[in-house]
């Protein structure tokens, strides 16, 4: 049983026009097995929250705490956060030229498991993870995210989620860019990871459709750098109908 606790998180980013305040005190607690959907208007700071938890160097933490089972996440380097059990499925996965998917996955698995996975079982493991997400095994020899379509990149993220078995995952708009079939396939992948590892999930999305596949326990409305309302799944339906007007005008 793990707990990811975010308290009063404040984050700024350096821009050409000076320092901009983006997160203005975010409070959120996620326990193993729970799924928290975060919905909110463009530019409200959802990805900033995701990146800040993962440790992207672009963001400066100016206040608050993030802990995983009491350990100070903000003190950890990016790779230490992954080793502690955090995973970020990115809104825009990065292309890494010249690095094959199979080499990348094996290096990551070796780092996370503390030893290189046995070659025989590893090959089968990767192959079945790919098949489960309807990915052509040929992806293993391609360079990481290079030339992948938008939807292929998202599948690749969730394949990593299944292979690397984190405790807590932040899925940043994993559903954007997926066709209807892919949405179901990817959602099933997330649900498998939830079941297999009692994964805690922060699911950032703009659409209620994915919430039909991945059932949220909580829905949070994110606006202007903080969580402005929380509720159950019914809140998502309300947002779909009414938009964010009630929240952004405040």
């Amino acid at each position, binding site marked *: 049983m793990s707990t990811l606790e975010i308290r009063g998180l404040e984050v700024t980013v350096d821009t050409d026009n000076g320092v901009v305040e983006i997160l203005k005190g975010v409070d959120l607690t996620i326990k193993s097995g729970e799924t928290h959907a975060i919905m909110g208007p463009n530019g409200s700071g959802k990805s900033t929250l995701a990146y800040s938890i*993962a*440790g*992207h*160097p*672009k963001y400066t933490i100016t206040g608050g705490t993030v802990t995983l089972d009491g350990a100070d996440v903000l003190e950890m*380097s*990016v*790779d230490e*956060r*992954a*080793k502690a059990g955090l*995973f*970020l499925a*990115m809104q825009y*996965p*990065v*292309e*890494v*030229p*010249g*690095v094959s998917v199979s*080499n*990348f996955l094996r*290096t*990551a698995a070796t*780092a*996370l498991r503390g030893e290189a996975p046995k070659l025989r079982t590893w090959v089968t493991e990767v192959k079945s993870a790919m098949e489960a997400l309807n990915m052509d095994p040929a992806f293993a020899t391609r*360079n*990481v995210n290079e030339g992948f379509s938008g939807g292929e990149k998202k599948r690749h993220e969730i394949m*990593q989620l299944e292979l*690397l078995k984190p405790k807590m995952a932040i899925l940043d708009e994993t559903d954007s860019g997926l066709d209807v079939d892919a949405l179901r396939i990817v959602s099933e992948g997330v649900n498998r990871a939830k079941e297999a590892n009692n994964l805690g999930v922060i699911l950032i999305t703009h659409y209620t459709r994915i919430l039909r596949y991945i059932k949220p326990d909580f829905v949070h409305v994110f606006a202007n750098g903080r969580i402005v309302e929380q509720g159950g799944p019914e809140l998502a339906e309300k947002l779909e109908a009414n938009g964010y007007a009630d929240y952004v005008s405040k």
Partner: protein
Amino acid sequence: MSVLTTNYLTPSGREEAWRFTPLKRLHGLHDGVAVISDRISLCVKNGLPKGVSFTREDLDPLAQSDDVIIERIRGASKSVSHLSIAANSEIAEPVFLSRSKGAVDTAEFSRVRITLGANARATVIVENTTDTVLAEDLEISLAPGSDLKFVTIQEFESKSVYTARHHAVIDKDAVFKSVTVTVGGDVVRILPTVEFIAPGASANLLGVYFATAGQFFEHRIHVDHAVPHAKSNVNYKGALAGQDAHTVWIGDVLIRAAAEGTDTYELNRNLLLSDGARADSVPNLEIETGEIIGAGHASTTGRFDDEQLFYLMSRGISVNDARRLVVRGFFNEIVLEIGDQVVQDRIMDRIDSELEKAASDV
């Protein structure tokens, strides 16, 4: 050893061709001060397949050179190490040439010729190792329809100086590909040059280099499109790390008035992995006819991409491993063109260790 009779113009460092080169570190190769030994270090490594011979003979130069060191080499000796690949032979396995032990208190003047007969196909891999002061005039002759992959690997030890011209003369419909790897030595200055003498030929000049603290590596490419319908592509990638690591890449492509239907592109990308290193990159396209298919160039110099490192590290990969992956990935596309697994692995390992060395220097 013949007596030098010609008066050579000693470069001062102000000439365009010499403006980057640290002349003081050339052990007198450029000004005649070097003591020339009579060692001949180039040798066959694993024996020769049928259709290939390696002999010592007197040969006139294939092409003129205005490089003063090349002139000095030619003035000193007519004798050439000649690797010859017979017409119509297809050599499946690479032919390896390597170096016997060198020395740095004396210098070697080396003349080399690689000849491909008509329609011959081969891969030649030259492994430049040892600690040496070596000036080399290497010429390659591709007869019509021949196909050569020429791999030259500078893995010299740390005191070495190597100045060379690798000049290919490419006849009708011949295909020339070179992969120039420079990862070792104190000063390495190579002139990979190409001239087309009949239509329908192509040259693909690839290279990688990695300079660490104090090393100077210069690659001065020249492609001469003097005839119609030839194709050239140049792609060199370099990495630098450490105080006073310095690389120079010059890409001169000349499309003469007669060279209608030319298609050429050149690219140089540099990865600056630390402060205190300097990468000079000068693409230079001279076009004397508008009747061409294409001509372009690009040159970039950048640092580690933070987004790439972040992505890899967010999967648990340590910063050092992430850098290693990114650097390997950067060089991969060109190293793979060598086509020999053992050599490729060795170069990738060398790149890893250069990177480690650089990381521990910082």
